[in-house]
Each structure stands twice: as C-alpha cells, then as structure tokens.
C-alpha cells in the first residue's frame, strides 16, 4: 500500500490530528513574529512619554523582563488549563476580548457568506452562459471593475450616497449593532463586493471548462435541460477551487476585515487584532492566534472534504 488513506473517516481523523499540530504552530509563529517586532507592551504603553525609568517600571509591572521562552512557556502552561491569560494593557481576561469581538464578526461573516455564495454562483453562471458573448463581457467587465475598487473607497462612496445623501441607512454601527441592525447593510455590501467578483470569476472559469467537457455535452444530449446541466452536472466539477476560495474568504471574514470594521465601527476580531499588535499585547495576540488557527484548520478541513467530494477521482491517484 502506498500510504494512501483509504477511508474518508481515517483521512478526517488524521487531518484533525494534523490540525491540532497546526493550531499549536500558529501561536508559536505569531509569538516569534510579535517578539521580532520592535518594542514591547511597555514601550508602546509609554507612548509619547518614553521615560526610560517609566518603561522599565512598566516592564517590571507587566512581567515583561523575563526571557521570551519563559513567558511563552507560562502562557502555554495556562492554555493547557483552558486559560487564555489576561491582556497586558487593560488587564481584562483575553477570553472576554475574544467573545465580545466574536459576536459582530460572526454576524458579519455569516450574513456575507449567505449572500456571497448565491450571488457569486449566479454571476458566474450568467457569464458562463456564452463565453465571449455580450453578457459574459458585461458581467466580467463590471465585476472586474468593482473588484479593482478598494474596500474603503467603495465604503466611502456607498456611505456618501445611501447614508448621507439619501439617508436610507445608518452610516455606522457606532454604539453597537444591537441598536440599529440596518447598520449592517453597508458593511455587508462592502464586504461582499470583492469576494463576489473573484468568486464569480472562478465559477465562470470552472464552468466554461466543465460545460465544454464531454459529460456536459452528453447530459445535454440525454435531454437534460441546459440549466439543469449547468447547475447539476457542470457546477459540481467547477466548484473545487471555488470552495477553497470560499474557505479563504470565510477565513478573511472571520479574521481580518479590518477596513470594514473601522469604516463602519463594528469592532470585531480584526480591530482587536490590529489594536493588540499595535499595543504589543502579546496574550491577546496569542489568544487570537489560537482562535484563528482553529478557525483556519476547521475551514480548510471542511473545504478539503468538499473538494474531495467534488473531485472523487483523486483518491486513486497513482
């Protein structure tokens, strides 16, 4: 046997095991990177008053005067007890930070993804109807042009029109989403804009290949209606890369929508991350690293499972 795992269940088990290793590797990597950054929490906390004595006192107070390895070991030791430690800056438990920021992030991500998939697939289908046709070119050009507009520019534009000029929507979620759920509309649209375009491009590319494949032609000949062939026969074959892209998008939505969060005042995980890195708040950064590591591993596993299902032939690769 050439080491090819036979059963999907065995494969999933092994991937989960590997995943645990990866989740462990992420904080190590992040710790090394944050340590490599100039300055530490004491220096940052001192800000524009960098009195050396004060920095030293801060360092002692934050127990930053110990070697990096020791600090990491302490943190890891706490983690094994399910403790994520406390923030260096405010002293609050890291878990509080994460749970607070997770809610808006999850909400945004879930909304965006539920709209993203149908929109991207729909646009991709539309463009792939006739390659090089007027519709294809129109869809391609428009999506590409939208894709080239950075989030903040789009955000500023949409806010100016729909919130400030027309007054239909609140421009920000300042004070919390709970007060004004409509404030989610603009950030979701901004978050959607670019992934929709890139995903639709991938859908289109895969569909064009799949629709040209003999099995699609055969299905058409067997009298399967064209739309059904597109959706039921060609699409699954086009989806493997799309699913990977979606997983990456989901991950981006969960871990790093910094611009949209800032623009619309939705303090989610991206903001917490950026703040924590800026403040060299290592425990918070580490807590996020664990969270992101877990999210990534699970999402990637899901995507790989889906991709395997969509390209089942791979299991017999020589």
């Amino acid at each position, binding site marked *: 046997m050439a080491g090819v795992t036979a059963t999907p269940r065995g494969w999933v088990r092994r991937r989960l095991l590997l995943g645990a290793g990866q989740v462990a590797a992420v904080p190590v990597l992040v710790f090394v990177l944050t340590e490599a950054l*100039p300055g530490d929490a004491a220096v940052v906390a001192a800000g524009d008053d960098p009195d050396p004595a004060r920095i030293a006192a801060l360092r002692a107070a934050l127990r930053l005067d110990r070697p990096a390895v020791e600090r990491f070991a302490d943190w890891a030791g706490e983690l094994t007890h399910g403790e994520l430690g406390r923030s260096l800056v405010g002293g609050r438990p890291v878990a509080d930070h994460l749970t*607070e920021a997770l809610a808006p992030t999850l909400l945004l991500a879930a909304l965006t993804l539920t709209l993203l998939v149908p929109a991207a697939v729909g646009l991709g289908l539309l463009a792939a109807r006739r390659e090089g046709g007027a519709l294809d070119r129109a869809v391609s050009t428009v999506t590409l042009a939208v894709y080239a507009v950075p989030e903040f520019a789009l955000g500023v534009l949409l806010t100016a029109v729909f919130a400030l000029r027309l007054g239909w929507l609140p421009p920000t979620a*300042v004070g919390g989403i709970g007060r004004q759920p409509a404030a989610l509309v603009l950030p979701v649209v901004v978050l959607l804009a670019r992934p929709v375009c890139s995903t639709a491009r991938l859908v289109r590319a895969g569909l064009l290949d799949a629709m040209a494949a003999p099995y699609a032609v055969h299905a058409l000949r067997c009298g399967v209606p064209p739309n059904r062939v597109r959706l039921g026969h060609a699409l699954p074959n086009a989806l493997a890369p799309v699913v990977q892209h979606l997983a990456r998008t989901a991950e981006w939505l969960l871990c790093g929508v910094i611009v949209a969060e*800032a623009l619309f005042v939705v303090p989610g995980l991206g903001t917490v991350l950026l703040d924590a890195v800026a403040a060299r*708040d290592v425990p918070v950064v580490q807590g996020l690293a664990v969270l992101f590591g877990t999210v990534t591993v699970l999402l990637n596993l899901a995507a790989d499972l889906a991709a395997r299902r969509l390209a089942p032939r791979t299991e017999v690769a020589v």
Partner: protein
Amino acid sequence: ACSAPGGTAAADRAPAAATPRRGGRLRALFAGGGADETLDPHRVNLFADAARAKALHDKLADWGPDLAAVPRLATGWEPGPGLDVWTVRLREAAFHDGRPVTAADVLYSYRRIADPKRAFRARASLEPIDLAASRAPDPRTVEFRLNRPCAEFPNILAAFGAYIVPEGTEDFRAPVGSGPFSFVSFEPGRALLLRRFDGYWDGAPHVDELEILAAAEESARANALLAGQAEYAHELAPATARAHASGGRIGIVRLRNSAMQGFVMKTDRPPFDDPRVRQAFFHLVDRQELVDGALSGAGEIGNDLFGKGSQYYPAGLPQRTRDLDRARALLREAGAEGLRITLDTSPVAAGLVEAAGILKDQAARAGLTIEVRVGSKDTYWKDILDGGVLASFRSGAMPIESHISQRLLSTSTTNATHWRRPDFDDLYTQAQSTADPVARTALYERMQRRLFEEGGLLVWGFADWIVGHAPRLRGVAADAPANTLDWARFDKVWLA
C-alpha cells in the same frame, strides 16, 4: 501669588450660550482605545480616556485656555515662603455616592499615582512632591511638601491624569468620582453611558445623559455626526472640516494651538552639534508650505518655540521666515554643504509623514539631501528619543514650564533634542524659586530666547484640533486647546 484668575470658563463663552436647555442625551464620538480601555482615571492616555475621566472625576486644578492653572476641586493654593511647601484648600464637593471629597482622598489619589510599581503616566508630573511628608491638617486642607522649590506648583495639580478618586478605590469597573456625570454602564472600546450628577459642585450639567462612543476611523466619526448618530465628534480631519464647513449640516470648531508640530535635531550629534547647522534648518524651512501641505492649512505657523498663545510665551520675538541665502551661508560656514541626513518619521499622528516629505523637498533647495525613513508608529517616540539625528515631532498642549522640565533639562526624561546645558538648567531652577511673577516671566523669556537662537526643536506650526458638532449642540467652547479645562467639557453644553 495665590489663586490664579480666570474662574470657570462659562464667562468666556459666546453670547449664544445665553439660554441653556435642560435634557436629552448627548452622544460624543472619540477615537477610542479598543477593547483594552479601562475607566481607571490614573491610567489615561488617549483623548477618549481624558474625556471619560473628566466627565466622571475632577482634578484639583485644570488648565485654562492659556495653559495657566485654574482651581477646580481646590479653591485656592498658598505657597510657603521657600516655595517648597504649598497649602491647598478644598472646596465643598461630594462624590457620586454622597461622600464628601476630603484631603484623605486627595492624598490617597496622589499616592496611588506616584506608586512606582504602577508606572502611571502622571507619576512624572507629581515627582516634585514629597508625598510621604505631605499631610492633611484637616479634612479640607492638604499641605504638600516638595522636594525643591516649585513656583509652578499649580501646574502639578492640573497635571494630565491627576484625578481625585475616593480613598481606597482600586476597582474601576463602576467608578465613583466627583465629576459632573455619574456612571451608568461601560462597554470597553464601544460606549460609556453616564448620567447627570445633580449634586455637582459646579452646577449640574444641562444634558440628562452623556454617552461617550468610540470610533477609531475619522471618516466614521464624520459620517456618524453627519447622519445624526452623534452630536459631537472629536478630532476631524482638516479636509472633512473644509468639505462641511459651509454646508450647515454640522458645526466646526477649531481648537487653536492644540498641537505643536516640528522637528527635533539632536544637539549633541553631528551634524546638529554645530549650532550653525541647526540655525540653517531654522532658516531653510518654509513654514506656510508645511502648514498648507501637512496640515491642509488647518493651523498656524510656528516660531521654533513651544506653547504659542500660552502663559510665558515670548510673543515679541520676530517671526522667522524662509531665508535660503542665510541658510546656505550658515551651512557653508559649518562645512555642511551637500550633507546627507536621515529624517525619521512615522504615521503616529496626522501630518507627520507629510511634513517629512515637504522638509525633504525644502532642504533639497538648500542643497541638502534628506532621506526619509518611516518607522513603526507603535514605538516611534521611544525610537527617536535616543536614535537618529533628525525626526518629526509633535506634542499636545501643556504649560511651557512642563515642556521645559520634561524635555529640555539635563535631568529630563524625554529630552529628544539632547539639549543639556547646565546654565539653562540653572535658569530653570532660578525661575522655580522666584515667587515674583514678573521676574519669573523674564527668566522664562531668557530661556526661550536661548532656545530660539540655538535650540534643537524646529517648531514649524501649531495644528488646530477640529471638533465637529450637530447644529443643535450649543455651548461648545472654541478657545480651548486640547487637554485644557473647556476642551471636551460636556457639563456646560446643551441640546437646543
């Protein structure tokens, strides 16, 4: 010298302040500090922290528009003959829970700030006080003993972060203070909700509720204000102010002289150890171009001295203008023609990087090559304290005395220009032991002339701090540089 004049700022307000209306919730937007924010008033760092702290708490004194101390919880102060013992009388005030504010609270608060283990920012300001020896002869009197004479002792009472909290307070999750508003709820990084404190000694606020909201992004603050999601937005960009100044949708208040903008030259390192090179730089900059380009025109030009508009500022000195011939001649004399210099900068505050780019172009006209190095904004101040030779610099408003003591003495802890001159130190010590204000003013002028001639700080401008507010929000003070008493003061404004 006893109680400084000025009184409460209400007197200085515009006539529109005539008929305040009671009630309503005021939502104020600040650039927040994220999920790590705490309500510990001694830990203040950001403007948002300061705004929250001053709504909940009081200091013994605060700064007036000219950065002179104005009594707050203190009714007045009396120096001893050697200027090293000061007696401070407290006014009759109460905390939100009804307890009176006493001398014990004051001593507790100051000792907490000065605790070396905590490394609070205000600790350096309280350093002249010998807190172990200070005492409270009666509940309404505090007798401060100082380590050395200090004519500007009231500045200490107004220091950034020197708030008075009830004795024994350690938990600030639901803080109790003596400020105009009392605590209701707090979500770090998002919102702080406060209620009017009817027992406030300076008169209860007009608004029922105050909510301090956080929005880090400037455009978000502007948008929220424009759309009526807030009534007050702190720190708007000059471009935003210009775009909306005339629309009538929002009111724009420019707080002049709020931030000094400049460059620091290390006076002990080549090429800037040669005063002629420093002077050449003083002469080669076009200050208006810097104000226009880096501050979008929202500010005024500087004259290489800190604290324009504040007490002791030598307004009589001639305004420097660009003189390229003079600069070139000075460089030639110093043998520094065609020099290559690295300029450190960082996007740590608005305009810094832009100013660096402009200085680069301006220096090129004098034959100098400047290389701009953009550093990490998180550690910038520490990096330039001892590193490099030339760096962008900015500072919020503070009394000139504080500026000198913190940055320009041999013993100063944040002396970014490395300006260490024993004779200069002597002048400062002399000023601190001079009780006569006129003589002291003269001493300050001598120090500043010296800096004007050969100091290491090139002050090219003073940025306006731009505050936006809803048209129905009235009574926002216009002549209050950031961090002074009337800045971000919400007990005297009202919703029409």
